[in-house]
């Protein structure tokens, strides 16, 4: 089966610094892939190339067989790629419900409509309700986002990422800043996303990685150092050397 997302020889140079070097990998539909590596390994840079925020210096990205290397961020969302942010990126001055409404409109046909009231639109309101109920945020729907607890904001973050009904979900440090219990919660949620969604995530939290991922790629100094299943990675001496005991690191960089 052809990979859903494929990168070929991605390289990213910043001035004299090479952040990513000749990275090639693919991810199959329905797969759960984790990208790990110490700080500065190039994970975020590579992630930004996949989301469209950054154009690579060399190489190409293919999605469903199509070259999307130059595609803009919002275009990728319409193709079926969605992302979450490491640092929670919501609409802080609006309520949870409005956050959901705005998120859902992003890929809807009527999003340029200047005539119909959004708050009175029954379909939009119903869809927002469904989205929020799926992440247990419906009770908080009239709370303004900046007053929510961090864990609740993280849940909303994930909800917004799913608003566009994506085929490929790119998660950036999903358990960043969460307590053990909250991380376990996120782990379960990602696991429960179903086989229709493919997930690629950057993570530092090894419990999360081993709890979710089927395959793991380790980046080191911008190159793929090794890849394999969880068991293979867990028992790999090089991985242990590279990390040198940072397995328990929960917070992001």
């Amino acid at each position: 089966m052809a990979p859903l997302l494929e990168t070929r020889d991605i390289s990213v140079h910043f001035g004299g610094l090479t952040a990513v070097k000749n990275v090639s990998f693919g991810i199959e539909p329905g797969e759960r892939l984790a990208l790990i590596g110490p700080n500065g390994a190039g994970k975020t840079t590579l992630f930004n190339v996949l989301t469209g925020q950054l154009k690579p210096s060399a190489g190409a990205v293919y999605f469903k067989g199509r070259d999307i290397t130059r595609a803009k961020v919002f275009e990728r969302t319409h193709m079926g790629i969605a992302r979450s942010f490491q640092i929670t990126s919501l609409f802080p001055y609006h309520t949870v419900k409005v956050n959901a409404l705005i998120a859902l409109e992003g890929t809807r046909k009527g999003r340029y409509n200047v005539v119909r009231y959004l708050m009175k639109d029954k379909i939009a309101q119903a869809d927002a309700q469904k989205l929020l109920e799926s992440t247990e945020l419906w009770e908080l729907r009239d709370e303004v986002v900046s007053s929510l607890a961090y864990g609740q904001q993280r849940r909303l973050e994930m909800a917004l990422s799913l608003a566009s009904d994506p085929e490929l979900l790119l998660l950036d440090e999903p358990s960043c800043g969460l307590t053990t219990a909250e991380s376990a919660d996120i782990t379960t949620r990602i696991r429960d996303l179903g086989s229709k969604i493919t997930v690629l995530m950057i993570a530092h939290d090894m419990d999360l990685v081993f709890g979710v991922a089927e395959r793991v790629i380790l980046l080191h100094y911008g190159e793929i150092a090794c890849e394999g299943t969880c068991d293979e990675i867990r028992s790999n001496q090089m991985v242990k050397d590279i990390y040198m005991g940072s397995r328990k690191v929960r917070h992001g960089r």
Partner: protein
Amino acid sequence: MAKVPEELPGDEAYTGDVPRAVPTKPMTRSSLAVGLPVVVVAVIILVLPLFIPSFVSSLVTKMMIYGLFGMSLNIIWGYAGIPSFGHAAFFGAGGYAAAILTLKVGISSFWLNLLLAIIATAIIAAILGVPAFRVFGVGAGAVNPIYFLLATIAFGELLSRVAIAVRPVTGGSTGLSGIPAPHLGLGFKMTSGRYYYLVFFITIVCLFIIYRVVNSRYGYALRGIHDNERRMQALGYNTWLYKYTSWIIAAAFAGVAGFMFAHFGGTMVPNNLAMITSDIAFLLVIMGSTTVFFGPLVASVVIVGVDYLSSVYLPERWPLIFGAMFVVTIMVIPQGLGVFILKLWRKVVRGAAA
């Protein structure tokens, strides 16, 4: 059908960019509590001329025109988060269109000229919007916020210099005067008393349209872009397109205000395009509250009122007073009058309901 003025929740604090409000829990409101004041104000304006001397009617006309001007800027400033310091470019364009079309081209139909003025203003906005958004927003060229500010200031100045230079068309630095009274083609002559109602009618229609736009899906997208443009892009919005189109829409309404201004005063000068007029626009927005729908309207009443009082008692000191309004607004009531009035109104409603 009562109108529900939607406002962004309000208390006071700042983020460091366009003045924002830190929200409280949004209040549930009954349609009556909100629709009522709108109807009351409208009725007051309608019957006012029967009770007051004509110069006051004239002032109220001015308040409506400037109110619309401020509202047009708030579409991009308060909702989309685009702080334009050159909005007078569009106000003046609308006004000059009125002047040129009636005096130089010879078209006397008010409605046709209005339409042409809107089109001309929109075209100018479409052209100026290209370099403007080159330097504003996520993914734009220069990341320094000052550049957009300077760009917008430059637009107004540039147009005013064009107006000065192209003497045969625009009357050069003395401008165009003697703009005739509007010819509606309905059979009756236009007087300043009747013009009051014409302005009222046009303003109400424009405000209604603006209200629908900012509360539509498009309007909410603008709010989203203001709050977090990066996220909006990730959600699938073509944020550049939204900003660009909202810029043009705001320009069009400013053009309408300018058009009415031209027929009101009868004269258009290059200063109507320049920074001094743009400064009035953002005083309207800042003093009025960027986060309250009717904010700029309130500010318009205050500013026109103070202007009048100053012209009577301290005519020489108007720039001082004008400047002082800026300073006082920023230092004393930074959240704006709109928020203040809204809170007062809520207290009254709560008190009455209790």
